[in-house]
């Protein structure tokens, strides 16, 4: 009877083993999926949107920035995580025939200003210094929270800049410039201070590609609207408003982003194809050599949205146990903990005791005496003593 029992046992063992293997395989599949949660590596999203141009005829730069702002907000990044810098106010410009609006398409189809826009740096606050301070975090302590980029090493940051630029520089406010070297150094500072996980840099200016030439920090992907030596052109003018409403590149990027919703799986490669030369006239460029991941795997919403990864499963997943939990040692209170009485903290006795009143000033006695003596003398000289009459 020993032989059939071992056989059954063997079959059972084999089945168990197989089942175990399958289970393990299944479990590892879910494990993989679970680990996909952490693949992109970021836990929060920030956006820094900068328009660097002043004056009414640069309406399109403000419209560019506001379009990206609108998309980014729509896809989930809250205002508290967006630093919006607009160098001029188009919505309330006296030359705006439709006040409180900024349109991005002719025939006034899309008002990108909306009624919940929050501009953090406005007008003359948009300077190179402020921009670099925002990026590097070297901000005076009195700066309000809305003006800070409070990113950490798990933040994906989208940086969008638009304005007038040239080969290696971008003009701020018609009075100063930021060079590509400065920008690259700022990003390096951010990397060293662990202020970003991954950074997407988009620039829509003339010769925009020159701005990302000098980047040398890891995890940066850059897009530009035109190559060195080319001008980025504006889209159609609106005859009702009188200026060009948007630049071509951002116009098509906006069109592309309007298709994106928080759950879309569109990746960066599609973004690279957004504006071919036939539509944009200039050649958009991109740079991905510093980026660790394959652009194929990078979702648009990794940068443009603030997507919470939620996936519902009924499987039990065992995660690696975390390293030893943080036992933050709170410093022991060495101070005495007996409660202080109010009266002991304030010099109540001194407060109650009235200060002696300031003495009012009085004119000196000599003065009063002298003055009245003179007045009386004059009086008697004119009206009084008879023998003084010849003066009268």
């Amino acid at each position: 009877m020993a032989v059939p029992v071992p056989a059954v046992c063997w079959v059972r063992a084999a089945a168990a083993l197989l089942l175990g293997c399958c289970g393990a395989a299944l479990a590892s599949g879910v494990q993989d999926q679970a680990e996909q949660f952490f693949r992109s590596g970021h836990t929060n999203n920030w956006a820094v949107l900068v328009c660097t141009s002043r004056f009414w005829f640069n309406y399109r730069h403000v419209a560019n920035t506001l379009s990206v702002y609108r998309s980014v907000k729509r896809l989930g990044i809250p205002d508290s995580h967006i630093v919006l810098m607009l160098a001029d106010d188009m919505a309330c410009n006296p030359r705006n025939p439709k006040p409180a609006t900024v349109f991005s398409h002719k025939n006034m189809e899309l008002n990108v200003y909306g009624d919940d826009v929050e501009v953090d740096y406005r007008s003359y606050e948009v300077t190179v210094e402020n921009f670099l301070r925002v990026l590097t975090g070297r901000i005076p302590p009195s700066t309000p929270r809305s003006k800070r980029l409070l990113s950490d090493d798990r933040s994906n940051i989208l940086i969008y800049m638009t304005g007038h630029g040239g080969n290696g520089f971008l003009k701020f406010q018609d009075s100063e410039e930021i060079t590509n070297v400065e920008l690259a150094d700022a990003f390096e500072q951010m990397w060293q201070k662990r202020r970003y996980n991954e950074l997407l840099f988009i620039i829509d200016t003339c010769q925009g590609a020159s701005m990302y030439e000098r980047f040398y920090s890891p995890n940066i992907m850059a897009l530009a609207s035109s190559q060195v030596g080319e001008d980025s052109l504006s889209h159609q003018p609106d005859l009702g408003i009188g200026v060009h409403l948007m630049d071509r590149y951002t116009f098509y990027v906006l069109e592309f982003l309007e298709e994106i919703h928080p759950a879309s799986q569109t990746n960066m490669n599609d973004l690279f194809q957004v504006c071919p030369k036939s539509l944009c006239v200039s050649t958009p460029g991109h740079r991905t050599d510093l980026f660790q991941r394959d652009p194929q795997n990078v979702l648009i919403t990794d940068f443009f949205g603030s997507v919470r990864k939620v996936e519902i499963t009924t499987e039990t997943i065992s995660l690696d146990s975390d390293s030893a939990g943080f036992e933050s040692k709170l410093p022991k209170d060495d101070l005495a903990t007996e409660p202080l009485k109010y009266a002991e903290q304030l010099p109540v006795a001194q407060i109650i005791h009235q200060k002696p009143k300031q003495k009012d000033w009085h004119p000196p006695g000599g003065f009063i005496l002298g003055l009245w003596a003179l007045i009386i003398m004059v009086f008697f000289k004119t009206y009084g003593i008879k023998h003084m009459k010849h003066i009268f």
Partner: protein
Amino acid sequence: MAAPLVLVVLVAVTIRAALYRSSLAAFISERVEVSSPLNAWKRVVEGLALLDLGVSPYSGAVFHETPLIIYLFHFLVEYAELVFMITDVLTAVALYLAIQDFNKVVFKKQKLLIELDKYAPDVAELIRTPMEMHYIPLKVALFYLLNPYTVMSCVAKSTCAINNAVIAFFILATIKGSAFLSAVFLALATFQSLYPLTLFAPALLYLLQRQFIPIKLKSKSFWLYTTQYAALYLCSLVVIVCLSFFLLNSWDFIPSVYGFILSVPDLTPNIGLFWYFFAEMFEHFSLFFVCVFQINVFFYTIPLAIKLKEHPVFFMFVQIAIISIFKSYPTVGDVALYMAFLPVWNHLYRFLRNIFILSCVLIVCSVLFPVLWHLWIYAGSANSNFYYAITLTFNIGQILLVSDYFYAFLRREYYLTHGLHLTRQDGTEAMLVLK
């Protein structure tokens, strides 16, 4: 004539009291045309407050009043409104009495000249009669008390009213003939604001005339009287200044008051000519131009003295007008003082040429002052040029007024001695021209 005067006084006091109680008082006291850095009430209160805190009021650049004002208001600061109303009334009464006396003098002189046959035969219509001169003192008091400028100045509690009162008393003393009192009040007026110094000449001329001392440079009695008067004046000035020293035991008030008046450091806009120039002038030239502007006030005294030596009261009027146009911080209170004299020269009406345009200029400018101030400071759609343009026009109007009266006066004098129908050598009608 006491009853109508009392009536006028009562009406004036009522108007002022009503304005004090209304909300306009605060608005008026803020107006730069009414209160200047020299005589604003705010500054008086500030100076007294500083004194209460134990600090000299002249230590900052706030307080520019003389120590006698400190003494006066030290006890009377709660009754300030009453003080200013009484001051205005006193000024009006002083002017009333002065002009009454002056009319008597004028009439006496006219009678003398007629008897001496100094007048041409056909000037009967130019001779003044006591009937027409009867109401002039009342009109003077009326003009002073009910002049909107005076009312505004009083409501703003600007110490210009006190300056005007002292000058009015000086005029009263001079016309009454008392050299001593005249010297004392002139010293007081000079002590208060520097410019009445120029009134020394007309006062001297009047007193000499009254003493029947001819104005010849060789005459011994002329020089004797002049030195007497000058000595009285200077002595009283010195005594007053030294007395002021003893109020605060310091000479601080001299740079604060006279240094301020002469060097014009504060360029707050006012109705004068200084502020705009010095706001845009280079530092390099400012001393030169300060000297030029200040000399301009004193400059007209000698030529006017030579021309108007027979008519010292008219000279006084012209001199007061010149002071209020060219002084460093004029206000409408100063303008009101010489405007009060206009009824005295009623008889010149037929010779005045610019009545309409003058009155239009003065009224329109007075109305435009607050308008352009609002546009400049509050609405931001004008700038200082607009306000200065109105200031300039206003001062041009004033100068036109003075020169018009001057011309009319001289023309009348000429007609009196040469007859109304002037003919040239060839018999055609001639016209008098002021060159």
